[in-house]
């Protein structure tokens, strides 16, 4: 990390007097940010009678039965499974297909390479609702309604992953490629034996974004599924809200269920996550 902008002479020393108002402000702001989550967890553990009564942010009861009830009232296990399958499918697709494409853009020379790349990047500016109507029509005509194919196939590749991987690959020196070529390796072997192993940070970034995106995705699954057997967790939660809107404690149990996986994943992989986000802010 480069030196941070502070008062001269204070770069390394801590100055408690200056730090206190900053810490205080951060404490207050982070408390405000976290408050809704605290309410969510607290409410999910209350009995119905206590929902609208204090305390609001700190649990004073632990009615785990709320979770049991919620999981019995709606097929949350199914929803989880469907989300898992969809996420796994999309993740695999991104890691494989995006890497292949990124390598082609980064290392191979072919006509219209830059134009093609620009066209792909341009598609990232297009809002989702501009593509859903014909895509929906296509999926229906393919007979994929209410199927995993509808949930996974249209999203097997994404431009974001290609951009991230290509940028990273471009920063890897070509010396290693050349050395491998001297040993008789062609582009495919160079890709799999040299480039991919070196791309771990970029692959991790792509993986995290893909998982985050897939797990939290709502609109597309909403359009292409209607049966509980294929509904994902976000759809399930939304439907649950309709039925249990007046029972906040059950609803919050369901909400916690839907939110937990990505939050837990994030908490475990914080540094990598944030590093991944930061890397997208640095353009090449």
């Amino acid at each position, binding site marked *: 990390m480069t030196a941070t902008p502070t008062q001269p002479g204070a770069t390394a020393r801590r100055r408690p007097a200056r730090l206190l108002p900053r810490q205080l402000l951060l404490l207050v702001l982070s408390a405000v940010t976290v408050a809704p989550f605290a309410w969510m967890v607290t409410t999910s553990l209350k009995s119905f009678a206590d929902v609208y009564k204090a305390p609001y942010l700190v649990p004073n009861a632990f009615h785990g039965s709320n979770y049991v009830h919620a999981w019995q009232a709606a097929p949350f296990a199914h929803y989880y499974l469907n989300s898992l399958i969809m996420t796994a499918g999309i993740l695999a697709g991104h890691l494989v297909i995006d890497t292949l*494409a990124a390598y082609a853009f980064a290392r191979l020379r072919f006509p219209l390479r830059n134009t093609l790349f620009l066209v792909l990047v341009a598609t990232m500016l297009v809002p989702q609702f501009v593509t859903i109507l014909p895509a929906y029509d296509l999926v229906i005509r393919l007979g994929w309604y209410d199927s995993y194919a509808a949930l996974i196939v249209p999203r097997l590749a994404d431009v974001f992953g290609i951009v991230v991987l290509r940028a990273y690959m471009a920063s890897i020196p070509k010396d290693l490629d050349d050395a491998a070529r001297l040993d008789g390796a062609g582009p495919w072997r160079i890709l799999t034996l040299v480039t991919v192993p070196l791309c771990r940070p970029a692959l991790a970034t792509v993986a995290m974004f893909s998982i985050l995106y897939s797990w939290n995705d709502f609109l597309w699954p909403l359009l292409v599924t209607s049966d509980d057997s294929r509904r994902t967790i976000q759809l399930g939660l939304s439907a649950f809200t309709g039925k249990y809107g007046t029972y906040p404690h059950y609803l919050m149990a369901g909400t916690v269920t839907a939110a937990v996986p990505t939050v837990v994943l994030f908490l475990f992989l914080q540094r990598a996550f944030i590093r991944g986000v930061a890397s997208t802010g640095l353009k090449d």
Partner: protein
Amino acid sequence: MTLTGRAPRTVAPGTGRRGGLAEASTKARWRRPAGGGDTRTALLMLAPALVIIGVFVVYPIVGTGYLSLTSWDGFSADKAWVGLANYRHLLGDEAFRNSLGVTVAYGAGVCVLGVVTGLGLAVLLNGTFRGRGAYRAVFFLPVVTSSIAAATLWRYVFADTGIVNAVLTGLHLPAPNWLGDPHLALVSLTLMTVWKNLGLNIVLYLTALQTLPATLYEAAALDGAGRWAQLRRLTVPLLAPMTFFVVVEGLITSFQSFDLVYALTGGGPLGGTETLGFLTYREAFKLSHFGYGASVAYAAFALVLGITVVQWRLGGRERWAL
């Protein structure tokens, strides 16, 4: 970043292993086969991505344009051609004009608040002190939470009986009907969206802040500039390229924002939060006006493009250097 705000040439550093293999590059290199060999390999490697993206992204983008010239209802066998009738209808449609206003106000609110909170908190977090990582993680939590979970949660937080009003009442302040009034509902949606993206903006600004040279600040301090002046005169202008990036991200996010709208207010009350994306959905999937919905989508698309181009010309050029 340099004074011109140009980002460094490389992205996340490659590992660039040196050592024995470096010698190989000084020996005679085997030339790779001329263009043709590469092209075939490239085609094979690109095929899966191009097929998926071509079929499910590029084709639909064009397809929506085509649909906007029809009056298709979403399930009939034929799509009746109506030319520009949908667009003519757009111009006079009350719902469209409302939606346009909502989307622009929403986008502006999200961008401005996003920049202010992101930059402000990044400045606060910039530096080494205890708990910094924990704060950063806390601000990032909403980012990784699903939009449906977040919006469901906030529906109760903003409810008349929710904690926001509980706090306001406790402070003897008026406790408005956050989700019941059309205008206030949009404010609520905006606030929630800013909360949701807070961590993202903070991390982006932190990244940019860390590339600013400390010597500049030392010089400014020597000239007598206090922290506030340093912020206004040095930090903010130097961060302009990142601000551009954050604004574009904010625009794209708010224009796309379907999930949050759906789960928080369902577009209401009285269309108070009906963004263009939501209107598209409603026209196509609730009213079976696929053709008209497509024209709404295209109009929104044009808007996004227009704003992005204007932004780019106004000073984002350096950052994007395309």
